[in-house]
């Protein structure tokens, strides 16, 4: 029986509010551990949001977000000492601040309401706010791929920005490169646990705000295009935001003028959030796992993967032979058998978790969800080489990291 990961009860109790059930479903699906909705823990099936959320997961993500993959193994050198969640004791409104065009227009009003709300944003949003003389309460650091994270690292180093160093709290997912967090005070840096993410920071921020107990949530600068021309590339994020708002249980407001309409986000002037000065955001923290424990966990996953790595090596070898012209029945049989073994490995939830969370592989998990067309015949060498090569190399790279650390 799987354990359902829930948001810290203490946080919700402190805030005097029960976090909506949609958060548990959102967080659980985003982990990519279930191949089908019926494989999710029974407790989650009581949530009315589950069917729709799963449909979004299937439609836009093909049932694989990859939001928890750490193919560069950045978690091993993550500087955070703390984990936990932020709490809003007086349930102050939270404004999620993006860098869309509506932010610039709203800066004067944002200054007026600043003391009555909490601001959650991204590192780029923190830069934009800093230019306006504003400091957010929480910066959420997450990236869809290591390339995006590396891009941010370069960007920050050139701008010499100190924006991250000034904010009260920085929530950086475990995959964040250490270089990106070099200016952050370690007493204010934490790894959110659980991390409610599908890889899109505005949705993650909304989930964190709900978990913190916000009595209302507003979007600003999360425009997703314009009212006349919604950006189709933002459809996945839009779907998630609309779903979260529909089940949030608190008012969800869109304070960004001129952005794409979002169902269940009521267009509302930012000025309406003015009110009494709210107390600071609090962090309910506990020590995060030490680097030694993280290395030990990685090492255990590396060891457990060894049997399937043997299959992967044989599969790559057979795939290369077929690719290079070996049409013998024996070689093709080895290719077929090896690939079937890799696919069969996906039937075990524990193995899936080891290979995804431990090794950071991305291609085989997709084939576990959408198997290659068996009629492609000898062309099977291509998906087999793709998936098995990644598996082999990730195992090799993790092994090298572990040896260096030892």
């Amino acid at each position, binding site marked *: 029986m799987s354990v359902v990961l829930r948001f810290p009860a203490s946080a919700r109790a402190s805030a005097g509010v029960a976090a909506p059930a949609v958060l548990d479903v959102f967080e659980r699906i985003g982990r990519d551990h279930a191949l089908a909705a019926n494989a999710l823990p029974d407790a989650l099936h009581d949530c009315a949001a589950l069917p729709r959320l799963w449909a979004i997961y299937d439609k836009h993500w093909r049932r694989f977000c990859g939001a928890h993959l750490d193919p560069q193994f950045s978690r091993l050198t993550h500087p955070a000492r703390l984990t936990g969640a932020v709490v809003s004791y007086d349930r102050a409104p939270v404004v999620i601040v993006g860098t869309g065009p509506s932010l610039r227009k709203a800066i004067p009003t944002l200054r007026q309401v600043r003391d009555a709300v909490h601001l959650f944003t991204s590192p780029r949003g923190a830069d934009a706010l800093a230019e306006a003389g504003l400091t957010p309460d929480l910066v959420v650091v997450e990236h869809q*791929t290591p*390339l995006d994270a590396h891009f941010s690292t*370069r*960007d920050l180093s050139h701008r010499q920005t100190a924006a991250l160093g000034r904010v009260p709290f920085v929530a950086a997912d475990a995959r964040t490169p250490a270089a990106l967090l070099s200016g952050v005070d370690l007493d204010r840096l934490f790894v959110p646990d659980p991390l409610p993410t599908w890889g899109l920071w505005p949705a993650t921020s909304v989930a964190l705000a709900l978990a913190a107990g916000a009595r209302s949530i507003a979007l600003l600068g999360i425009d997703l295009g314009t009212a006349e021309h919604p950006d189709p590339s933002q459809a996945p994020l839009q779907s998630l935001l609309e779903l979260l708002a529909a089940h949030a249980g608190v008012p969800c407001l869109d304070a960004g003028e001129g952005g794409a309409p979002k169902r269940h986000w009521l267009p509302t002037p930012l000025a309406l959030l003015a009110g009494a000065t709210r107390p600071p955001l609090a962090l309910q923290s506990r020590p995060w796992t030490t680097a030694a424990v993280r290395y030990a966990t990685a090492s255990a996953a590396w060891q457990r993967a060894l049997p399937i790595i043997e299959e992967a090596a044989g599969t790559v070898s057979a795939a290369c032979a077929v690719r290079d012209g070996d049409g013998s029945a024996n070689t093709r049989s080895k290719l077929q058998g090896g690939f079937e073994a890799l696919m069969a490995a996906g039937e075990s939830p524990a193995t899936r978790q080891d290979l995804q969370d431990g090794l950071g592989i991305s291609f085989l998990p997709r084939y576990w969800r959408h198997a290659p067309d068996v009629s*492609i015949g000898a*062309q099977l060498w*291509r998906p087999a080489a793709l998936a098995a090569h990644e598996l082999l190399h990730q195992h090799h790279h993790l092994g090298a990291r572990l040896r260096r650390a030892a």
Partner: protein
Amino acid sequence: MTRILHVIESLAAGGIETTFLNMLRAWRAEPAWADQHVLAFAGGPLESAYREAADSLTITASQDELERAILEPYDVIYFLFERCAFRLLPLAVAHSRAAIVYGKGYDMGGMFRLNDGLTWQPDESMMWGSDRTTFTTQNLAAGFDLPAARCEVLGKAAAIAPFLELPEVSPITAPRIVCVANLHARKRLGDLITAVSRLRQDIPGIRVRFVGADDGHEGARLLAQARELGMADACEVVGRRADVAADLLASQVFALPSGCEGVPTAMLEAMAAARPVVMTHVGHISSAVTDGVEGFIVPIGDIAALTKRLRTVLTDRPLAMRMGRAARERVYPHDVRAVAARLRAALEQTVTKPIPGVAA
């Protein structure tokens, strides 16, 4: 007739998008050899040009539509950009009978690999799962562990033809520096302003002109820096321009002090315009420029060296003219028509001589 689908990230006016558009145009100018279809994840300023250059253009962000598009019966699918490959190539190799060619250039993964040594493992796996991989330069290809028979090095392409017609640097060319680049912090354009400020006393009339799309902040930051250094009148930020020939013509030297590059298209255009170039040791610039021959290469962030080299090419006009001529000679292999012919040969070979295991 061969049916090809080219998959690209967007129709933004970026280096790869512009270069590939010029490839399509080069093919268009020849007798038809293939139906050329383009699938883009997002539109952009180059949309109408792409519509003219390709037989069809599909722009969609919908996963359903993207998947339907690549499962049409093509002979070859050519993926550019690691992001679209990461999203669609696994599906293509598992469900399509088309040959799959991965075009690896100076996208984010390529630049970070070359400049920072960042290894993004899925990139290499996608090459292993493809029938063939094309690379922009030999240097880039050398960073991946692939059988040589499955790689094609095309060379960095630029549409240099119009620039080859421009007059060389002459005795009356003003002491102007032009920098053509997207305005972004990673380009370190502020270094150039600082260098020019140090040259003002010695070189009266010196000016620097920045041409390129602004990321929303950088242009204003550069102008503010110029004001702080008291040289607002010597620094222009003109934004993106469709034709930079006039900017090159009015300048004596092209300079780009960037911290992250592959082989910049703008540099190749400047070389074709017979302008000496002052660049940084970054990316694979040394594949097209030899320090002291077609211009100078200085360390990233070394403003003293940048200033010294700019002073040399701005004050020694015969040297600037010699370097400009050498630059023009050096750049011919990068002509987009030549590179397009090499890519065409690679794609044709993939179709006509399929790698064993791939259905003809």
